[in-house]
């Protein structure tokens, strides 16, 4: 395998093509424009389709039509654009369609800014649009992982017939790192796409829909979805344990770019003989709640610290996971400001000195 130096957005674009997704629909938005520009150049070479839509509302719905063919299709966008796609995401979740969405998050709310942020955690992991559904969410913290998770996203989408999102931030999209693409990419088999609308020649017509006026039928559809989410929780939870050991006094929970910064902090603290471990969720839904609890209750752990590029979103899931067994602390910056290792380290020192504020995050 050869390592190539690439920009995050372009690496993600190439990864999708390597996973067999050659149908791409999008509308420009910073900081992920390189994905679309790469696709516009590259897709004609591989017999794919690139459509620049009139809006992200249309993008979501073009994906809906395209994915119904049974082929691998995807989009990339950033926060405000993903908001506009929520209509179609809800419909595709209801109709059980395996679409893949890349969200290179920027600071919000509203038009916000174009700098890195993790403020779309709630939107991505709790449904996002209307109705009772979840999106499977993968959060890379390096470019190599962005490549691997993008490819995996198509597999998991097909496996569960569920919208799947790669949730990264502007830092991952914009920075350059060496990446490797697998030479002979083989996947576990996915279920046959016998639900695709390919024309009813020789079989009964297929209808892809989400409408169910009879509440008994609609509840049943929702229970099918719920069953799927249970399976995801059983089989798909992914996380990385970094320097987790029995001597840890603090357990940090952080994902994506923020987790990388926390690793730097943990390395520095190690030099000073302060033992801190990191549990980095890779799947944000399903969330590694049990795994966090298992570490949090270890006798040496004094507190659990969640660090995010937001005013506190994942921390709610961490609090729920830890269930008051240990204090949960929060540190975050927002609006496109990325916490420095010094800031995070200072906060950890404050926790150890028991000097942190009583109200931990905006949600208290």
């Amino acid at each position: 395998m050869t390592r190539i130096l690439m920009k995050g957005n372009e690496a993600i674009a190439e990864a999708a093509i390597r996973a067999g997704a050659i149908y791409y629909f999008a509308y420009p938005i910073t900081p992920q424009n390189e994905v679309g520009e790469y696709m516009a150049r590259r897709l004609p070479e591989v017999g794919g389709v690139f459509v620049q839509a009139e809006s992200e509302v249309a993008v979501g719905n073009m994906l809906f039509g395209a994915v119904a063919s049974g082929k691998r299709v995807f989009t990339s966008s950033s926060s405000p654009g993903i908001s506009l796609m929520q209509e179609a995401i809800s419909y595709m979740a209801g109709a059980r369609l395996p679409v893949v969405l890349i969200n290179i998050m920027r600071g919000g709310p509203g038009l916000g800014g174009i700098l890195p942020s993790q403020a779309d955690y709630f939107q991505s992991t709790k449904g996002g649009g209307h109705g009772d559904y979840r999106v499977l969410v993968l959060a890379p913290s390096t470019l190599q992982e962005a490549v691997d998770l993008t490819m995996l996203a198509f597999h998991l989408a097909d496996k569960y017939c569920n919208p799947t999102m790669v949730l990264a931030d502007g830092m991952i999209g914009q920075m350059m790192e060496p990446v490797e693409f697998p030479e002979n990419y083989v996947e576990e088999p996915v279920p046959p796409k016998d639900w695709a609308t390919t024309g009813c020649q020789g079989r009964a017509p297929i209808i892809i829909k989400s409408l169910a006026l009879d509440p008994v039928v609609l509840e049943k559809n929702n229970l099918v979805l719920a069953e799927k989410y249970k399976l995801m929780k059983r089989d798909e939870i992914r996380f990385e344990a970094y320097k987790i050991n029995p001597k840890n006094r603090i357990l940090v929970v952080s994902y994506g770019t923020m987790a990388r910064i926390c690793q730097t902090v943990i390395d520095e603290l190690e030099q000073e003989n302060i033992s801190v471990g990191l549990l980095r969720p890779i799947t944000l839904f399903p969330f590694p709640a049990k795994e966090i609890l298992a570490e949090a209750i270890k006798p040496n752990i004094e507190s659990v610290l969640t660090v995010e590029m937001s005013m506190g979103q994942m921390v709610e899931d961490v609090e729920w996971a830890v269930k008051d067994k240990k204090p949960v602390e929060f540190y975050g910056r927002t609006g496109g400001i990325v916490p420095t290792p010094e800031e995070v380290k200072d906060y950890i020192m404050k926790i150890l000195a028991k000097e942190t504020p009583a109200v931990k995050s905006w949600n208290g």
Partner: protein
Amino acid sequence: MNESTHAIFTRPQSFRDVVTHYCPGCTHGVIHRLVAEVLDEFGIRGRTVGVAPVGCGVFIYNYFQTDFLEAPHGRAPALATGLKRVSPELIVFTYQGDGDLASIGTAEIIHAANRGEKFTTIFVNNAIYGMTGGQMAPTTMPGQITTTSPRGRNVEECGYPIRMAELLSTLRTPAYIERVAVHTPQNIVRAKKAIRKAFQYQIDGKCFSLVEVLSTCPTNWGLTPNESLNWLEKTMQPYYPLGVFKTPDAEEQK
């Protein structure tokens, strides 16, 4: 049927043997039938995928013997774009009401037409939101009483009804656009011809095609089925003239 009888009128193969949910006198059913007949005549049922609207036509997929997608309100042209682009071998059509196409889905239809997407749209204009109980649509006639224009459509506040066929015909991209009606047998025959032509252009991979069909909604117009046919002719048709507004051939000569 014994050997001495001979069926001269049967249900199209593309249409299921079911009773539709449409109100008495509603012409949605007539338009369905014309589309089904055309699919049969071209022998394309097995490679056709319809895209249903949100509106009274939403259950069209229960009546057709073809694959179907159910779009969010107004977005059928975006779904059709996505599907046709990745599966160009399919015949794709959208079936949309006037609230669906001329209000919430205006952006989607204009841009699909402007990109020259190779699918067909059947646009059912009944000057009202039928499904939600008769509210004003962008196509509602001046002075027309609806549940949200109880004193009649006030053009000072709401503007004049949108003529979608004309509006879409201003686009430079080649397309086939015709307006027809289904209130008399002669008009139904013409409507069928237009729908045939629209599908023919798609089969030939030529252009986007749209047939606007003036249709009735006796229930929400508060008229009998017969009065409705009359109202369509007397009130709608003068404002929404019938005819071909655009052909790809004419555009190519420009």
